[in-house]
């Protein structure tokens, strides 16, 4: 004996219903499933970003160190001036002239240093390969004899990126093993 007509309709309805729900389940799990992050994912992104910031700060610190050396050298070459107040004589900056006394022409070391240092530092900053470091971004303060403090005007912007892009994983065969 076979199912009657109502029975057949119910049977096919059940089959289609089950298939439909399966397809819906698969579609939902593959499309919206990724919207919810893995536990700890956001924290890892943040730590990674802070790590990148740490690297950028290290780069800035080192650049500042070399810029100081370069600035001292540059100023020494130009008699303490970035650009001389009372002109120059065959490339030598003048500290006094016939008409102007030494207190009118002598260089303001601190101001000249700050200005030349900023210029030198700005030559380094755009060369960081990963982080954009803004130029002319530091208010400088000179303390004691060799202490230079730079207060940043604007913050560094570190993008919070995707994971795993730079990871390499492969097996080294026994033959090529690390010896």
């Amino acid at each position, binding site marked *: *004996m*076979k*199912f009657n007509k109502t029975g057949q309709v119910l*049977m096919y309805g*059940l*089959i289609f219903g*089950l*298939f439909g729900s*399966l397809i819906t*389940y*698969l579609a939902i*799990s593959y499309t919206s499933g990724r919207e919810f992050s*893995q536990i*700890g*994912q956001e924290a*890892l992104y943040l*730590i*990674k970003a802070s*790590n990148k910031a*740490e*690297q950028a700060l*290290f*780069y800035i610190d*080192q*650049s500042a*160190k*070399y810029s100081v*050396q*370069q600035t001292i050298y540059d100023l020494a070459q130009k008699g303490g001036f970035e650009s001389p107040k009372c002109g120059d004589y065959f490339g030598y900056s003048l500290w006094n002239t016939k008409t102007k006394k030494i207190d009118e022409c002598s260089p303001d070391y601190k101001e000249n240093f700050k200005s030349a240092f900023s210029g*030198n530092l700005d*030559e*380094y900053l755009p*060369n*960081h*390969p*990963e982080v954009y470091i803004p130029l002319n971004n530091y208010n400088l303060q000179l303390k004691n004899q060799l202490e230079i403090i730079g207060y940043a005007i604007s913050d560094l912007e570190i993008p919070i990126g995707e*994971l*795993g892009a*730079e*990871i*390499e*994983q*492969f*097996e*080294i065969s*026994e033959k090529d*093993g*690390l*010896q």
Partner: protein
Amino acid sequence: MLNKKGIVEDWLPLMLLIVVLVFLFFITMILKIGSEREQIELFDKEQDKIMAQQLLVGYLRSPFSTGKNLADAINEYYLTRNQLLLDEIKRKTGQFFSGSELEEDTLSWDLTMNLPSGEEIEITPLEREITPPTRAFKIINVAVDTPTSTPNKIIRLNLWVFYTKILA
């Protein structure tokens, strides 16, 4: 009443469908578990990478001599190519990393510097290179850039961390 054969024939398509559905459900579950495991592995590697990067920055900031850190020493080597200085850098490198998390039986490391001229110079101390035969199953590479006295030239330090198994 239907006979036994009749009942089986009537319910056969439905039973087949249920079998197919259960099979599909299991496949989906296995795929999901696989991708979750992959994610966890990726996370582990990222954490290791973060650790290695912090270590490398700490290494570059560590003191080399009075008023000079290791990054300065590396820059000086780039300018002078003094072999004695390189030997001293290698010694300090060994000293630094031997006290770090990388000094374990199942870990090995390698440090190189890429000079702006394109040269790659090994800074791993020689005694580190003699290890028992091992098999690396995971490798992590992190790089940190340090400036030189010439503004547009950069030295890149590459730290390779090998997770190893010692071969019997």
